[in-house]
């Protein structure tokens, strides 16, 4: 550590210092080697930090100041739906009746928790147009795997052996990775000039060897798939299943339902659309909805209601089994349920209308400065190409994103989707005020000016962050993945 380095917690310690307090045993304390065989005992204690409670508080509080969050500022990270996470949700999720409830508590003693899961399934079924929903997956990608495995099990049950999954070239990386994890070969289909999946290419790729099409709608360009009805006919016409990556569900709540569009399976990122906090990379919750024909394959167990009692049903012989232990990220289910109950039908429709209005407003006010490869009314997000700035001033999208940080905003998603050169993907969400959007727009316009007038300023960005640009090549070539005393 050099003097200018921010310390890691190991460097703050002193031998013998403690940061927690536990009682002495109130039962007889026998020598360890009378309770356990000597060869099972640890010889050295783990070299954890030795710090006081205040050391811990200061260190992690200071680290929190070296972070950026929705609570602090605007987070237009496309595809991630970084909307406000209500404080009420934290309060209710922390109620001991939820937070200290053991997952193996007998059902008769967990009726409130089971009713919540059951109730969340009902409201999400209505919102999505799907028939049944599992909450076991811990994240979106985990939901994708669950959904594709159910499709696989469904084909198996019909004695059909299909080997491929189609994804559009604009798809999230998790889609092809999921298909591979589920044992499928991935076929990529290109997008058309309007940013839709190319229907003709889909028709050519779609045959009886294809198990499913994994589609995001609105897609990762922020555009609604205009040919969704035709796409549905093509896929179902050849006996395939239609999977929706629901990452962009925030655009269409109360406006259109994936179930009505013909999707057989979808996942919903409760940590995006239904505003459970993302926690710096999780926990998420990937609820997966299915149509009735796939319901027998849902992970074990599901919550059923008999009269006014709720129970866990694990007696489902055609289930794909379990995808994680217990029932999923229940704490996030509490938050998502609280959200939906707070919003109601009108509120949820307002969410999507406002998210889409905000995105179109930002687009309208920036389109004279940035290239727009697909010029259409967008949904909740849109994608610029930073090609003009790159070609004319030698300033890349990465440079402009880093400069954004100096203005006190998180950067948009960049270099995704892969089909847009120098991509800049902006998702404002509905929880941002016009004032915030205007400030962001001003910053984007200022950065465009800087790219022209003072490109070095942008190349060297960020300037106002706790550290400047980091050497990622060195990080990968000489991996330093854990602290060791120097």
């Amino acid at each position, binding site marked *: 550590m050099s003097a200018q380095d921010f310390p890691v917690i190991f460097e703050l310690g002193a031998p013998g210092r403690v940061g927690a307090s536990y009682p002495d045993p109130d039962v007889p304390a026998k020598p360890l080697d009378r309770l356990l065989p000597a060869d099972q005992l640890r010889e050295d204690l783990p070299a954890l930090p030795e710090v006081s409670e205040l050391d811990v508080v200061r260190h992690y509080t200071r680290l929190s100041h070296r972070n950026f969050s929705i609570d602090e500022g605007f987070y237009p990270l496309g595809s991630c739906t970084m909307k406000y996470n209500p404080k009420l949700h934290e309060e209710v999720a922390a109620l001991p009746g939820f937070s200290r*409830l053991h997952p193996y508590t007998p059902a008769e003693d967990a009726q409130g928790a089971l009713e919540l899961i059951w109730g969340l399934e009902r409201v999400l079924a209505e919102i999505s147009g799907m028939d049944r929903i599992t909450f076991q997956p811990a994240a*979106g990608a985990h939901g994708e795997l669950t959904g594709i495995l159910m499709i696989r099990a469904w084909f198996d049950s019909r004695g059909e052996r299909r080997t491929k999954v189609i994804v559009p070239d604009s798809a999230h990386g998790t889609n092809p990775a999921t298909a591979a994890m589920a044992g499928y070969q991935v076929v990529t289909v290109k997008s058309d000039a309007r940013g839709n999946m190319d229907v003709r290419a889909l028709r050519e790729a779609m045959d009886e060897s294809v198990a499913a099409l994994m589609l995001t709608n609105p897609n990762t360009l922020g555009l609604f798939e205009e040919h969704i009805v035709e796409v549905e006919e093509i896929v179902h016409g050849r006996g395939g299943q239609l999977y929706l990556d629901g990452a962009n569900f925030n655009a269409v709540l109360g406006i259109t339902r994936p179930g009505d569009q013909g999707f057989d399976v979808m996942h919903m990122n409760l940590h995006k659309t239904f505003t459970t906090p993302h926690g710096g*990379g999780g926990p998420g919750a990937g609820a997966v909805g299915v149509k009735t024909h796939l319901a027998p394959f849902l992970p074990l167990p599901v919550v059923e209601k008999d009269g006014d009692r709720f129970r866990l049903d694990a007696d489902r012989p055609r289930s794909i089994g379990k995808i994680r232990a217990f029932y999923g990220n229940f704490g996030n289910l509490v938050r998502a349920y609280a959200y939906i109950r707070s919003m109601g039908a009108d509120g949820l429709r307002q969410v999507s209308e406002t998210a889409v209005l905000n995105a179109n407003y930002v687009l309208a006010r920036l389109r004279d400065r940035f290239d727009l490869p697909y010029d259409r009314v967008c949904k909740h997000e849109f994608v610029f190409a930073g090609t003009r700035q790159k070609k004319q001033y030698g300033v890349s999208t990465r440079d402009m994103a880093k400069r954004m940080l100096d203005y006190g905003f998180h950067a948009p998603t960049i270099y995704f989707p892969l089909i847009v050169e120098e991509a800049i993907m902006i998702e404002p969400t509905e929880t941002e005020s016009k004032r915030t959007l205007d400030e962001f727009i001003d910053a984007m316009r200022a950065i465009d000016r800087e790219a022209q007038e003072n490109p070095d300023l942008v190349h060297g960005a960020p300037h106002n962050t706790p550290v400047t640009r980091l050497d990622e090549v060195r990080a990968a070539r000489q991996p330093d993945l854990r*602290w060791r005393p120097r």
Partner: protein
Amino acid sequence: MKTTNDAHVTLTRHVQHKYIPATPAEREEMLRVVGVPSVDALFADIPAAVRLTAPLRLPPALSDPEAIAHLGELAARNAHAGAMPCFLGAGAYDHYVPSVVWALAGRGEFLTAYTPYQAEMMQGELQAGYEYQSMLCELTGMDVANASMYDGASATAEAAVMAKDLTKRDEVLISTAVHPEYRQVLSTYTRPLGIKIVEVPHRNGRTDSAAIGAAVSDRTAAVIIQHPNFFGVLEDGKGLSELAHARGSLLIAAIAEPLSLGILRPPGAWGADIVAGEGQPLGSHLNFGGPYLGMMATRQEFVRRIPGRLVGATVDTKGRRGFVLTLQTREQHIRREKASSNICTNEALLALAAAIYMASLGPQGLRKVAELNLYKAAYAREAIAGIKGFRIAFDGPTFHEFVVRTPIPPEDLNRRLRRKDILGGLPLGRFYPELADGWLVCVTEQRTREQIDRLVAALEEIR
């Protein structure tokens, strides 16, 4: 699918919602800038055939006080570990969580951040991830750890897939003394990949070394054991890893209770190649089964096949230490269908909580908590063994859980204990039909001697 043209009826706005700041006047102005007459026009690209024509049928919106009351009412109908002594464990453990853990991990700066894609402004989350990785290595005795997986069960399954990739072999042996839900998840993950799972029966509550020795072959990618195992019994990790290594297989250690490593020799010291496990005991609450923290650690030479996020230290342009997500060419957003896993969102916040927890306890605190668990469980085990009609099922050494054979069905026993405000252990018949009278009892540091004595007195009354 519904098709009519009266979509406007759903558009009437009655409420200015507190999470949506746009006012009617601002909406009008924004629509003017966009150049459309109404919000409806922004959805014209959605084919009419799939557009909703009526409002969603959802329960009416609740105000904040109503929402809190409703959720409070649901929470109040659950019998939880704060309301009565709980002797359930089995992969989810009721430990004391110091106040600092969630006071810090729950700060909005951490809670409401995304995955740290812009490293320069996300040093807090990244550094915490690096510290967590470092502490997990210390705890497990392994070389490298990732920044988190979903939970113990899915981490174990991903470890098996990783072993297949590393060894180019297609069979995995797993002891039936591994958590049944972990085995179910393993089977779900590996079935489509053509990995053959062979379950090796336990013998008297421990993995049967002779059976492992007989089953392991040069087709075996990995042998999976849990330590302490699902029955709470310590395994012979060293012996089993030698058996695996003798045939070129990897040894995967599933650790469902990392606090045991405050006392027990860490898997890295007895030959484990991959440690997968459940980090919930490190500072997270029971939460009815999630969110939990998938742990994964391995040896240095396998780092490029580990799934999930890795945080690495590097320097900035001024030579200062900083942290980034690294070795990302393993991951889905770069490698797509060739990635080592599809994992993206993980359990970063719980990893942060685990780092705060481990730092707070330090080596001495960790040892003390582990000892408290050991002593209290030993006390309870001895007392229950002394009750007529009850006996300890397996004689192997245990940490904080043990299996009791009960004179009446354990489900009935639990119902009777519940009337005395005690949450009893886990009846094992649902997972092990041959253990229909098996009752898995867990005693953590949270249980007082008085509570244990109450349990014992209640059992004496019931028999």
